[in-house]
């Protein structure tokens, strides 16, 4: 499996959690950007 690289990115957005009797709004919830880790070129 490829090794992943994770970065936290800041993009304005909103998460709303609702239940039958509750509601919470979370501004700018954490978003992770998951990319493939670049392998070092050993021939360099």
């Amino acid at each position, binding site marked *: 499996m490829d090794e992943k690289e994770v970065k936290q990115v800041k993009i*304005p957005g909103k*998460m709303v959690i609702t*239940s039958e009797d*509750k509601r919470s709004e979370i501004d700018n919830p954490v*978003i992770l950007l998951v990319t493939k880790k670049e392998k070092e070129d050993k021939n360099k």
Partner: protein
Amino acid sequence: MKPIYFTVPQVGVGRKDYSETVEFASEASFKGHQRRDCWVVDYSGVPTIPFPFSYAVLLQFWDAAHVVVVPAPDIPYHIYKVTITTGRAALTMTGLYRFASLADAYIWNVERWYGDTYGYGKAELVYTNGIKTEQGKVYCVSFAEYSEMPTFDFRMTVNGLHEEVLYG
């Protein structure tokens, strides 16, 4: 609760086909001590990323004191459906992951993968029996739109329920 009535079709001769009832039995049924939950996440202007990269949102829950927390609380939640819509007919992806801790999520050290799915403008994961959360674990929904446009908008909807009472 309103009872569900249905007819059992008879095809050919012999015993009626009762297999349709299996589908009804597997539907989530809500009990008095449970509450339906819905997570909706809206973002616009998200930079498009190349395949197979993805974004991920950490799900947040209410604990017993009704405080929003990231690691799943002791009161279990059950996740039944994860839907991503982008409003554009481009390849769209979503997936659900579990991590042992928040630190593991930040290095993508996946403890359990609940599958991913693709669609055009919409991708949906359905868990007939629900995914029951475990205390202290971190749950993450991944998503992406693979279009050649610079940005995309998305809405993530997660449907589930949680127990109001903790049984020992």
